[in-house]
C-alpha cells in the first residue's frame, strides 16, 4: 500500500511538474537551430499560470459540450498516466487488459475535443475535427500492434508488466521487433502531439492546422487546461518511448528516475531537431505515411511470431 501511494505521488509530481518543461526544451532546441535566443525554458508554465488568471470569452452558439472538451482533455492524460510506469516507478493502477482502457481513454478525449470543436459551428474547427479524427483512426492500429508485440513478449496484458522488468531481457531476444516498435511508437507520439512533420504547433494559418484549429475558440482557463493536458499527453506517450528505449535499471531508484527524466529531455531535443530540419508534410501525404507505419508495426509482430 505504501509503495502504491509513493508511486501515485511520484507519478503526479512528474506529470504536473515536468510536462510543461518538455515543450520548453523543444522550443529552445528549435531556437538554437534558428540562431535565436528563443522563449525561456519555463515559458509554458508562465503561459498556463497566466491563462488560469484570465477571463473567458465563450461563443453564444456553444453548449456545455464546449466546456467539457478541455476538462476531459486534462483528465484523460492524468488517468492514463496512472496506468503506465514512469521509468522505474511502477504504475499505481494496473489490471489485465488496461492497455485497451489506455488507448480508448485517448479516444474519449479526442471524441470530446472534436465535439467541442463542432459545437462552435465554425467551419475551421469542423475541418480540424475531421482531420484529427481521420488521422488518429490511422494511428490507432499502430498503437495496438505495438502493445500486442509487448504483450506477447511479457506474457501479460497490463501496461505495467509490458513496460516492466521483462523489457530489458526482451531486448536480448527480440531486438529487431522492439527496434521497429520503438520507431512506430515515436511516430505515434509525433502524430498524437501534432508535431512536425504531421502538424505545425507554431503555425498561425488556420487552414493548415489539424489539432490547433480545434481549440481556436477556447480562451482563458479552458485554454490553460488544454495546454496543460496537451503537455501531459506528450509526457505520457513520451514516457512509453523512453521506457522502451531505456529499459534497464541501475538498482538505485533516484538514479533511475534521473535517467528517466534525462531520457524524456533527450527525446524532446530529438523532436526539436526533427522540427528544425524538416518541412511539414502535405496533408494528403499524412494518411499514406500513417498506413506505412501501421504496416511497419505489423511486421514487427510477424518478426516476433515467425
Amino acid at each position, binding site marked *: 500500500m505504501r509503495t502504491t501511494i509513493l508511486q501515485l505521488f511520484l507519478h503526479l509530481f512528474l506529470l504536473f511538474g515536468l510536462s510543461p518543461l518538455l515543450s520548453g526544451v523543444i522550443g529552445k532546441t*528549435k531556437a538554437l*537551430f*534558428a*540562431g*535565436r535566443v528563443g522563449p525561456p525554458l519555463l515559458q509554458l508554465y508562465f503561459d498556463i499560470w497566466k491563462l488560469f488568471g484570465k477571463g473567458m470569452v465563450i461563443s453564444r452558439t456553444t453548449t456545455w459540450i464546449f466546456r467539457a472538451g478541455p476538462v476531459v482533455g486534462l483528465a484523460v492524460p492524468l488517468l492514463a498516466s496512472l496506468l503506465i510506469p514512469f521509468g522505474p516507478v511502477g504504475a499505481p493502477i494496473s489490471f489485465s487488459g488496461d492497455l485497451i482502457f489506455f488507448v480508448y481513454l485517448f479516444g474519449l478525449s479526442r471524441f470530446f475535443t472534436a465535439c467541442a470543436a463542432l459545437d462552435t459551428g465554425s*467551419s*475551421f474547427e*469542423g*475541418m480540424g475535427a475531421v482531420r484529427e479524427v481521420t488521422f488518429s483512426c490511422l494511428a490507432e492500429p499502430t498503437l495496438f500492434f505495438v502493445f500486442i508485440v509487448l504483450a506477447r513478449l511479457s506474457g501479460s496484458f497490463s501496461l505495467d508488466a509490458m513496460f516492466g522488468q521483462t523489457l530489458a531481457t526482451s531486448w536480448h531476444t527480440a531486438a529487431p521487433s522492439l527496434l521497429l516498435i520503438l520507431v512506430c511508437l515515436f511516430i505515434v507520439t509525433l502524430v498524437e502531439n501534432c508535431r*512536425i*512533420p504531421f502538424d*505545425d504547433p*507554431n*503555425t*498561425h*494559418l*488556420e*487552414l*493548415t492546422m489539424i489539432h490547433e484549429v480545434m481549440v481556436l475558440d477556447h480562451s482563458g482557463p479552458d485554454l490553460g487546461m488544454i495546454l496543460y493536458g496537451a503537455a501531459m499527453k506528450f509526457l505520457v506517450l513520451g514516457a512509453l518511448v523512453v521506457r522502451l528505449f531505456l529499459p534497464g535499471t541501475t538498482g538505485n531508484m533516484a538514479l533511475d528516475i534521473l535517467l528517466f527524466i534525462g531520457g524524456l529531455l533527450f527525446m524532446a531535443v530529438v523532436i526539436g531537431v526533427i*522540427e*528544425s*530540419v*524538416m*518541412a*511539414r*508534410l*502535405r*496533408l*494528403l*501525404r499524412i494518411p499514406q505515411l500513417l498506413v506505412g507505419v501501421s504496416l511497419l508495426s505489423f511486421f514487427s509482430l510477424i518478426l516476433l511470431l515467425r
Partner: protein
Amino acid sequence: MMKNDLEAQLLKNGGTVDLSLMESLGYDEFSRCLLAEVKAGGRVAALFGVPGEGKNEGLELFALIARDRSAQIAVYRTEVGTSFPSLTQSCPQIHLFEREIAEQYGVTPTGHPWLKPLRFHRVWQGDTDVWGRPPDERPRPGDMEFYRIEGEGVHEVAVGPVHAGIIEPGHFRFQCYGEKVMHLEISLGYQHRAIEPMLLAGPHPFTMAQMETIAGDTTIGHGLAYCQVIEALSGCVVPERAQSIRAMALELERLANHVGDIGALAGDIGFLPTASFCGRLRGDYLNLSAALCGSRFGRGLVRPGGVLFDLDATLASGMQTRIDEIEGNTLGALNLFFDEPSVLGRLEGTGRVSRSVAEDLGLVGVAAKACGVPRDSRFFHPTGVYRQLFDEMITEETGDAMARAHVRLRETMVSIDLLRRIGTSLPAGPVKVPVGPLKANTLAVSLVEGWRGEVVHVGITDAGGRLRRYKIVDPSFHNWSGLAMALRDEQISDFPLCNKSFGLSYCGFDL
C-alpha cells in the same frame, strides 16, 4: 498580320502622346482593335475611363496595349455613354478593368459575366450606381453575392478580412468538397483610400508621399513609375547617375522582398532554418536601402527629375563589400531550402497555373514568369540603365509554388549581379535636374518592373497642365485572379502556401 490596319498611337515606355492630335475611335472599332491586338500577342496594360471635361460629356475609355516584342505601347481611345458591350467574354484579362470602370463611373459593361463591385466605394461622379446601392453611404466591403455551390458534402469556408497573422485585410470565400477547393472567390477593397481621385488637379505637394505608400513594399516601384510619368509630361531628361541610383534602389527592393518571401514560404511549411535566416537577410537588404537614402523602404529617394541622395565613393564601395558579404549568406540560406527533399515535396505541384490561363488572365511578374510566360518590363520596355545592363529574364515552366519560389531565387541572383554591375559603372554627374511645368492635354505612360511585376502608371493632363486623370495598375491587380485559379481542385490546406507563393499586395489592389 493585322497590325497595319490598326490605327494605334504608338508610344515607348516613358513616352507621351498629344491628346489633341489623337483620334477617338467608335466603340466597335475600338473593340475590334483591342481584340486584334490581344490576339496578336499584345496584353492590356491598362484600360480606364476618363470623364469628359464639360459637365454633360460622356466617358472616354483609354486602352493601353503593351506590345512586348516591339517594345511599344499602343494607345486607343473611344467614347461611351451609360453602357458599353463588355469584351470580357472574348478577352478575359480585362474583366477587372471593366468592373473597375463600372464601379468608378456608373457605366455598365453589358454582358459582363461576373459584374460585381471591386473595391466597394461610391461612384465617383453622378449617382447612378451599377448595383443600385444607396448613393449617400459608403458600401460595406465584401457586401456582394458570392458564387455558391450547393450539394451533398459541399461546404463553404470564409476566411478574413481579419486574419490570424499580421497581414493585410482581404476576404476569401471557398467552396469546398471535403478538403478539395472547387472555387475560390476573393473580395478586396478593405484598404481603399481613393488614391486616384486624390491626384486630380495635381501634382500636389504631398503627391509623391502618396505614391510611395500605394503599396509600402513597392515604394521604389510606384515612386519610380510616378516620377517617370511626371518627367515624360514635363520633357525632363533624368541624369544618368540618377538613373543608376534608381535602378540600384529598385533591385535592393526586389532583393529584400524576394528573400523575405522565400523566408515566409519556409515559415509557412514549417522549415525553420531558411525562415529565420531569410528574415535576417531581408533586414540586411533593407539596411542597404537605408544606407542609400536613410529609409529602409526607400522613401524619399526617388523624386521627379532624379534622386534626392547621391552615392559618394566610400558609400558605394562600402555597399559593394556588404553585398559581397551577404551574397554568400543569401545563397546558403536559399540553397538549404531548395536542397531539402521535404521542402521540394511540399512545393512541387502545389497551386499549379497553366500557361494558357496565365496568358488569358494577363498575369504579370513572378506569377507569370513561373508559368513560362515572359513578362518583364526591364527586358521588354527598358528605361535608364536597364537598356544596357539587363539581359537575363527568368522564366520557369511548371507554374506551381515551386516555380514561383524558383523564379524568386534566380531573380535574386540576377539582382545581386545587376547591383554589382551598376555599382562598378556609376556615371559621374548630377543626380537631380529641375522639372518644368507639365505639357497640356498630354498622356504619358510609364512601366516599371517592381519586384512583384509590372507597375503601370498613366497620367493625363488637362489644358492647364494639371492632372486630369491618373491611373495606377499594381501587378496585384492582375495576379489575384491567378491565385483564385491556382486553388481550383487544390487542397484547402494548401491555400496559405499558394497565397504566400504569389505574395500579392492587398493595398496595391485596393488603391
